[in-house]
């Protein structure tokens, strides 16, 4: 029976013969049942590329129907096989640049990578990319399979030249253990056994290399456990469940909640098979402590030296979404078992994984990897990725689609920013507002250009002013003459534009004012960002709902005419989208009522919400 489990990433493109290598590995280890092999014979006749009467092993591992037809491997596929020595999980990742995210996904759970190169082509940009990504994701063991040796006449000089070039590349990537093997995947040379055609090679076959590897992934030497679940079946028992992400643990050990620093001793390590005397890294446990120290999901229990709390992180981010990453955008930030909001404060450089150089950039597109700074809504206990995959790897989740859009590797914790302390002030916004007989709020008017936002906001402010209320109005056009005059109309600049206006609104709210913001603000994510900058109940989204045809008819500034003529680009409603609010606090339908009546509707809503009396 196998006595260990190895997780392996395999990368290379279809052209390198990767699928062929994998298919043969699986078939020769008996992982392919007879009826599946029979299916393979049928498929080989229909789609095969290796010639009459031969099995096309590549078809075994190209999973989805669309992929079989197109002959490309798109997604990460997982394969399983075992030998008497070891059980293997293969993450089979596609090779092309447009699938970098898939490769990163496969690499994130792997201990070792098998890289394929075509002996005729040697190291390509793609090989450098694969090595760089594997290294970035913390893989320290690489098997280099130099395939198609038959097509270079089994020449040892070719193999040695490629190996030397690859070794030189690894020197730039840090500490990596390399095993290079000359193979012919199609015929099985050096795949599971030695090759009679390459007697000059005395090293292990691919399978032997996988059986013998002893990778040591980065785990902290001291005990760490992100708390997943608080187990409270009754009033007596309270256990903290999670998986050890570092170190060992025995009853009696002194540990602490890293967030508060409060200490306790472990009294029991509970399991269904009886209490355990010890737990090691990777073990799922339920811990009982000798005293109550207030622990909940998202906290990290740890032994000294405790991991630190970060209010911001610097990280490599691999972007995985069609919509690029911009400064100012906010996402759910998931690390360990913690979930907070992370706002991108800076994007500095992009890593060119083919040349391993960095270029300054302002945004990251799909499949790009860059250095990013993220500020966190609440402190997060973490470590660098080099210290811990579990406490240093995070994902970014889109707040609307809830899809995973980015993966990050922490390179530094925001300790420097911790030095800019928040100064506690005695007079707060409630006190300032009370003096003025009002509760501060942001009235955020959104809608198409020409919808009537400024007209209505102006009327509302006049009414409030007449009632003796203290107000301030921020107009989208007006702030571009001062505060935001350095910003253009690219998507990145629009995000920054909104971020600044949201911050200014927040300051005015702190001053106790009722702030009226009149801004097209076409994207839901940005309006969400503005909403989050103030407290719940302080933000009223007011949708000035005018059909685009009507706005175009009014065209008070002649902008639609210019946009139609192509003189203005990225104009909302013409060649840029407007995402209408789904649940605005107030909806104003301008075709149904006059501006005065709509302004009255807003004032009435403020009264109903108790913002004014």
């Amino acid at each position: 029976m196998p006595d260990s489990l190895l997780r392996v990433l395999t990368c290379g493109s279809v052209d390198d013969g990767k699928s062929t290598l994998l298919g043969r590995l699986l078939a020769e280890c008996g992982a392919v049942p007879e009826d599946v092999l029979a299916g393979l014979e049928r498929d080989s006749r229909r789609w095969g590329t290796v010639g009459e009467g031969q099995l096309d092993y590549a078809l075994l591992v190209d999973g989805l129907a669309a992929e079989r037809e197109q002959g490309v491997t798109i997604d990460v596929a997982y394969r399983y096989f075992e030998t008497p020595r070891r059980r293997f999980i293969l993450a089979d990742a596609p090779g092309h640049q447009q699938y970098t995210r898939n490769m990163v996904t496969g690499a994130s759970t792997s201990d070792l990578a098998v890289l394929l190169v075509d002996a005729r082509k040697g190291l390509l940009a793609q090989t450098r990319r694969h090595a760089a990504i594997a290294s970035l994701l913390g893989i320290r063991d690489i098997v280099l399979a130099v395939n198609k040796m038959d097509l270079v006449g089994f020449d040892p000089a070719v193999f040695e030249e490629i190996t030397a070039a690859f070794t030189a590349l690894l020197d730039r990537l840090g500490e990596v253990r390399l095993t290079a093997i000359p193979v012919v995947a199609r015929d099985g040379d050096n795949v599971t056994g030695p090759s009679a055609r390459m007697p000059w090679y005395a090293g292990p076959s691919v399978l032997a290399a996988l059986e013998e590897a002893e990778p040591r992934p980065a785990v902290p030497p001291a005990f760490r456990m992100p708390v997943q679940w608080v187990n409270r079946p009754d009033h007596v028992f309270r256990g903290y469940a999670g998986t050890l992400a570092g170190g060992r643990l025995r009853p009696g050990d002194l540990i602490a909640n890293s967030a508060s620093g409060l200490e306790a001793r472990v009294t029991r390590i509970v399991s269904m098979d009886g209490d355990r005397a010890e737990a090691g890294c990777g073990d799922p446990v339920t811990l009982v402590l000798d005293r109550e120290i207030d622990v909940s999901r998202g906290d990290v229990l740890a032994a000294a030296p405790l991991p630190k709390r970060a209010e911001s992180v610097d990280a490599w981010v691999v972007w995985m979404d069609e919509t690029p990453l911009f400064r100012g955008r906010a996402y759910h930030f998931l690390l360990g078992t913690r979930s907070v909001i992370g706002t991108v404060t800076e994007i500095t450089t992009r890593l060119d994984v083919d040349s391993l150089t960095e270029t300054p950039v302002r945004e990251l597109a799909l499949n790009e990897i860059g250095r990013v700074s993220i500020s966190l809504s609440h402190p997060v206990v973490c470590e660098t990725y080099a210290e811990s995959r579990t406490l240093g790897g995070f994902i970014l989740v889109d707040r609307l689609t809830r899809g995973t859009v980015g993966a990050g590797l922490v390179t530094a914790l925001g300790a420097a920013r911790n030095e800019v302390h928040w100064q506690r002030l005695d007079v707060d916004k409630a006190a300032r507002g009370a003096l003025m007989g009002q509760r501060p709020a942001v009235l955020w008017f959104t809608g198409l250009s020409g919808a009537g936002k400024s007209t209505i906001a102006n009327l509302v402010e006049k009414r409030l002013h007449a009632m003796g209320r203290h107000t301030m109005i921020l107009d989208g056009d007006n702030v571009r003459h001062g505060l935001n005059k350095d910003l253009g109309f690219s998507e990145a600049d629009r995000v920054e534009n909104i971020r600044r206006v949201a911050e200014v609104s927040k300051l005015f709210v702190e001053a106790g004012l009722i702030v009226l913001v009149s801004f097209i603000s076409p994207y839901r994510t940005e309006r969400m960002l503005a909403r989050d900058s103030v407290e719940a109940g302080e933000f009223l989204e007011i949708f000035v709902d005018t059909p685009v045809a009507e706005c175009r008819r009014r065209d008070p500034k002649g902008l639609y005419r210019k946009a139609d003529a192509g003189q203005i680009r990225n104009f909302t409603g013409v060649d840029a989208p407007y995402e209408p609010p789904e649940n605005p606090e107030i909806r104003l339908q301008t075709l149904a009522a006059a501006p005065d009546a709509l302004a009255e509707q807003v004032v009435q809503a403020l009264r109903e919400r108790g913002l004014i009396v």
Partner: protein
Amino acid sequence: MDDRPAHLRALEAESIQILREVAAQSARPVMLYSIGKDSSVLLHLARKAFFPGRLPFPLVHVDTTWKFRDMITFRDATAARFGLDLRVHTNQEGLRQGINPFDHGSTYTQVMKTDTLKQVLTEGKYDAAIGGARRDEERSRAKERVFSVRGPGHSWEPKRQRPELWTLYNGMLAPGETLRVFPLSNWTELDVWTYIAAEGIDVVPLYFAAERPTVMRDGQIIVVDDERMRFEPGEAPVMRQVRFRSLGCYPLSAAVESDATTLDALLAEMRATRQSERAGRLIDRDEDASMERKKREGYF
């Protein structure tokens, strides 16, 4: 201290972490319990994950009324033994219309299994359904996520799957979306049986060889479980020493000839066998990409 094989401990640890994650992240999780060996392992892992607490989710079984009698007996005994919150659902409308596996073929599976499951999940407002599917069962499952998002109508869109990194599972959902969660994703059939042996987990007796009344259909051995079996003119059941590798509805699950009456014999047979376990499931063979198509339509 723990002398079980290292790879089983690693798989167990991964599954327990996944089970705790779905319980913590979802508002209304539910476990789909199908009575088979994978469900038995899944249930065992869930009991470990939340010990000494009770399972923080109910179990649901979609009963087509065509399950083997031994399965139903085992299901009820298991629920009683572990004090499970087990909810059994049958498509009453389908029953009234007399939908059955003999006359209605794939419509039967669609109506009594797939539609009923969707209905149960929708009516129960369950946002996450935990199942025992494994990636090694079928080629299109090899790319399934552990936390797999289903769109409105429980549809699966293979091209829009979320990247899944490290052990960070994203259980957040947009309106109309639900989750399927597969804690046994990385297990093979052999792992399941070695784990059952190592942990002493009970399974339905049908997995072990015994003399059973059988008939042949399309070259497959079908066990006659009750009087509803339809015979060809002049046909009579023949006793054969058989067992099942995969259990479903009885006239649609084929048995294999076997002498494996014990777990040890069964493991020895598993290590020697050269047939995939789904070879015995008649519904998978209609066309090449049939499973992928069924999943897009909401089959579990």
